[in-house]
């Protein structure tokens, strides 16, 4: 008999990169009006679903819990995860969380993971598509005192241990760690599924638990703008790049390219 797993997948809701994204307001935070489930977290969710399915899915007692921390709209990231196949959703939300940096985010998420209890594996995306710091997974692991494997491009779990592969520039590594552990996965690990009609209907019946800071025992002063360890003191939009000279090849464009490089002193 395979062991059953209780997996938490961290899903973030982020501004859609297909539109112009803006910073502003208190602390120069991102405007989240057009927000979606961070694309890179879909790979973590898919990895969790595959691990659960290989062990008989929810019928056999495997749990895939999508956890998102954020304002009201963040529940959409949880809903999309339920449609893809997560068994339950958790939305950690509290006004005091606004403006949390990675350290404060990891503190709140660590408390939420502890609150859920008995978690075997926390899976995350390789980076959020807005913050792009990749700090949260390692900080979460440090706070929970767990081993972490970041940027996993493959992941197997067997007998209370995980094996993962990581590709670095000069080498590829095989990594092993005991569970529980925190693992962030890359976009090389799988091809995330689309929610199908059945999944969308089934999601409506799944429960989403809303948690406040009080419920997970976090002092509001430790998170948000007040509890963060970094502040953004200014943000300036870079002038967008403008198109330069465009030519159509008439048989000598390669030469013209070299002329351009020579004029720019780039040869």
């Amino acid at each position, binding site marked *: 008999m395979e062991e059953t797993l209780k997996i938490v997948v961290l899903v973030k809701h982020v501004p859609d990169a297909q539109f112009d994204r803006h910073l502003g307001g208190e602390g120069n935070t991102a405007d989240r009006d057009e927000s979606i489930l961070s694309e890179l977290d879909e790979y973590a969710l898919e990895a969790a679903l595959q691990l659960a399915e290989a062990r008989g899915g929810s019928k056999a007692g495997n749990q895939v819990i999508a956890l998102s921390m954020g304002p009201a709209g963040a529940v959409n990231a949880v809903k999309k995860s339920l449609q893809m196949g997560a068994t339950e959703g958790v939305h950690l939300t509290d006004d005091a969380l606004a403006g949390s940096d990675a350290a404060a985010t990891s503190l709140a998420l660590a408390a939420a993971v502890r609150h859920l209890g008995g978690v075997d594996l926390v899976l995350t995306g390789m980076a959020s598509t807005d913050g792009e710091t990749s700090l949260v997974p390692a900080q979460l692991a440090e706070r929970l005192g767990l081993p972490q494997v970041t940027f996993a491009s493959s992941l197997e779990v067997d007998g209370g241990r995980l094996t993962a592969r990581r590709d670095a520039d*000069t080498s590829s590594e095989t990594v*092993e760690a*005991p569970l529980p552990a925190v693992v962030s996965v890359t976009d090389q690990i799988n091809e995330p599924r689309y929610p199908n009609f059945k999944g969308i209907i089934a999601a409506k019946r799944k429960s989403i638990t809303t948690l406040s800071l009080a419920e997970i025992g976090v002092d509001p002063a430790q998170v948000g703008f007040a509890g963060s360890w970094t502040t953004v003191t*200014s*943000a300036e939009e870079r002038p967008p790049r403008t198109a330069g000279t465009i030519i159509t*090849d008439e048989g000598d464009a390669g030469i013209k390219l070299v002329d351009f490089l*020579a004029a720019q002193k780039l040869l």
Partner: protein
Amino acid sequence: MAKVLVFIDNPGASLKKSSLELLTLARSLGESAVAVNGDLSDDVAATFAEYGVGTVLHPSVQDLGDFLVAPKAAYLAAAAEAAGAGIVLLDNSPEGKEIAARLGIRLNAGVITDVVAVDPDGTAHKSVLAGSYNTSCKATTAVSVLTLKANNVVPGPAPAPTTPESATVEVPAVANAARITAREQKVASGRPDLTDARIVVAGGRGMDGDFGPVEELADALGAAVGASRAATDAGWISHDAQVGQTGKTVSPQLYISAGISGAIQQKAGMQTSKVIVAVNKDAESPVFEIADFGIIGDVFDVLPQAAAEIKKRKG
């Protein structure tokens, strides 16, 4: 004066340019110490002296490299305390950021990644949202941990060399770190490193399985080779070459984009390049919106002709 600790993992036979950049920045901010892991060659020790390093710290254990980052973060936290550091500087590699992440929690220190410059008061500058904003950030804690992007500091030795002291730092035990059980070395291409190359020539789906013309032009220019995800997913070139949101972020003096449409995820990794040249046969490709010099044409005509012309001019 502020004390600044620089982490250099496996310095090897001689220091990489990005390490020299860290040392130069550290010296501009205060008194610098280095925490190394791995062997210290005479050559590297001499460079530390030239770059004005005051103290060189070593870990009490030799096996930090067998584990994923947690023990390195524990070592560095102890080293930062030993050195009384107010700023800890690391490189901006995935591993550098990860160590920084754990170190930040251990030291109750704010962490700022992707830093391009640091003011004397510790304010760090970085660009966010795929290069669309320039921001200034500051850690509000006693210690700040910063990871520095390559190619943003001009490395230079100190006006007067130092005679660094050497000390050993006791590494606290870390239970349950992930262990590296096997490592496969990749074959080196002999070309410059993508993240700090001065010139990058990148190919996309338009290369249709043949990266020869991209490599030929790259070699004529002494450039690194990059690629879009479409090209790496197709297996035409190694995944290490991928530029973009889930690949590398590059900001070279010159980025030549060949047969790449310029999707938002690709732009995220290259739009802070100084000069962008695009070759694409479709005039409607979004890459032309950000190109300083665009050629509507076939990569299999334009690239070989340019490579031949460069070789001719260079004689």
